[in-house]
């Protein structure tokens, strides 16, 4: 392989099968300078964990501090929209460093404690049942559009405290915000419409919760404004963040996990034999094996050595969850999908101070989804092998996942 090829991060073959590509990097050059895109690519488990736990060296304020243009390229007339989108995203919690990050995280943390999220299990289970009851008689579904995308929006809408009659509107906005992750050159228009629409929709809700707090996360953010931690703009952009972060990632967990099960029917049979007992471990293995988020970025805040390489302040860094999760020095038979795997210290939710705020919710959703599917469907089969992924370095997101199911033979 030539150097040019190893740096072709966005090639269709890498997007289709990131695991093979990143395994080669992890074996040959685990802290790799990608000359073509001018960034470091970190693939070894140990280096990824070290990086994430040493946030003082690696800033999360990537959008604010880097001038890289959107990739894949966008229509030139949409570039002004990009500046506005950058401003919007730069005020989100995930793009903040300490001390600001800690103050903001404290505002939302109380809402997202593991105990509080466990309290949502019954609601999640009912939502799964309701959606599957509608779909099951048809004998087939596009998992992405019929199930994986609508489910998390239903849950987030409830957490936001959105009135029932506004659910469809929220779902439309959520679907537009998902365009952040697509490749079409006109995608920023749709994304911008979604962001604007969500700000316009949320503004009166925030105003109302400022006066009369309820038990929802907009009220938690509004409390942050009252305490002087968040501006009104930050309340609004972080509402959008929670909607997006809980939507994109959960739908990928459902689709990527179900695909892994369909390609490993022995593991499906294993889950079906004990859905209550195995759902928890199975979801961890789905998260490890084909993670919803493939990689995320940092910017070096100071000069730092990592894996024997000298990284300079200001350098961009991509840490590859999908590669760390299959590092053979940590995971035995890393390319095998084994739903009984234990321990399973994957980094699909990150590590350190930015560890996924919604991790417990994602786990509850994943557990209820795979438990619910396993209890209903003896066998789910793919309707096509021709599967395409969104052209994204960050997300592992199928465009579509058509399946059908068979009834158990008497």
């Amino acid at each position, binding site marked *: 392989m030539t150097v040019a090829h190893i740096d072709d991060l966005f090639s269709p073959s890498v997007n289709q099968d990131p695991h093979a590509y990143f395994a080669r990097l992890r074996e040959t050059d685990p802290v790799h300078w990608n000359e073509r895109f001018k960034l470091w690519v970190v693939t070894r488990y140990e280096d990824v964990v070290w990086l994430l736990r040493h946030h003082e060296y690696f800033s999360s304020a990537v959008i604010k501090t880097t001038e890289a243009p959107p990739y894949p390229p966008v229509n030139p007339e949409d570039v002004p929209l990009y500046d506005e989108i950058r401003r919007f995203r730069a005020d989100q919690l995930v793009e903040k460093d300490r001390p600001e990050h*800690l103050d903001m995280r404290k505002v939302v*943390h109380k809402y997202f404690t593991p105990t509080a999220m466990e309290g949502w299990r019954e609601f999640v289970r009912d939502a799964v049942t309701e959606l599957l009851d509608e779909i099951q008689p048809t004998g087939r579904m596009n998992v992405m559009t019929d199930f994986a995308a609508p489910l998390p929006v239903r849950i987030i809408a409830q957490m936001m405290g959105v009135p029932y009659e506004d659910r469809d509107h929220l779902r439309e906005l959520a679907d537009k915000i998902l365009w952040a992750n697509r490749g079409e050159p006109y995608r920023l228009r749709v994304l911008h419409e979604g962001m604007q629409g969500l700000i316009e929709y949320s503004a009166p809700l925030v105003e109302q919760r400022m006066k009369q707090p309820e038990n929802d996360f907009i009220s938690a953010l509004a409390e942050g404004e009252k305490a002087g931690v968040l501006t009104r703009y930050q309340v609004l952009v972080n509402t959008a963040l929670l909607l997006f972060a809980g939507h994109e990632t959960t739908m990928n967990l459902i689709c990527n996990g179900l695909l892994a099960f369909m390609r490993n029917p022995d593991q499906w049979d294993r889950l079906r034999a004990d859905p209550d007992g195995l759902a928890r471990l199975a979801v961890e293995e789905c998260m490890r094996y084909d993670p919803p988020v493939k990689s995320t970025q940092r910017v070096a805040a100071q000069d730092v050595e990592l894996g024997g390489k000298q990284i300079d302040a200001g350098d961009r860094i991509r840490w590859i969850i999908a590669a760390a999760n299959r590092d053979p020095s940590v995971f035995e038979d890393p390319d095998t999908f084994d739903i009984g795997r234990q321990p399973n*210290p994957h980094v699909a939710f990150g590590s*350190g*101070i930015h*560890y996924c*705020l919604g*991790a417990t919710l994602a786990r509850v959703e994943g557990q209820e989804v795979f438990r619910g599917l396993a209890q209903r469907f003896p066998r789910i089969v793919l309707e096509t092998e021709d599967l395409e992924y969104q052209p994204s370095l960050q997300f592992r997101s199928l465009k579509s996942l058509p399946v059908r199911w068979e009834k158990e033979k008497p």
Partner: protein
Amino acid sequence: MTRSLRVWVDHSRCVGNAMCLATAPNVFAHNANRQSEVVNESGDTPDTILEAASICPTSAIHVEDAETGERLFPAS
């Protein structure tokens, strides 16, 4: 008199989120792996320690009543 607690961190779960250090800074500190360690079980009030345990995103912090052995966190 307030009750005394026994507190420890399960390192197979701790991901170094550091919310415990921010909440109960006199009880928890990071070790060389950037995982949480208990440095003083009575450094902060029992309520503060229980709050730190409850906001840990991986429920890695265990809290017991030192006298009775009653498990106070996690619940199960």
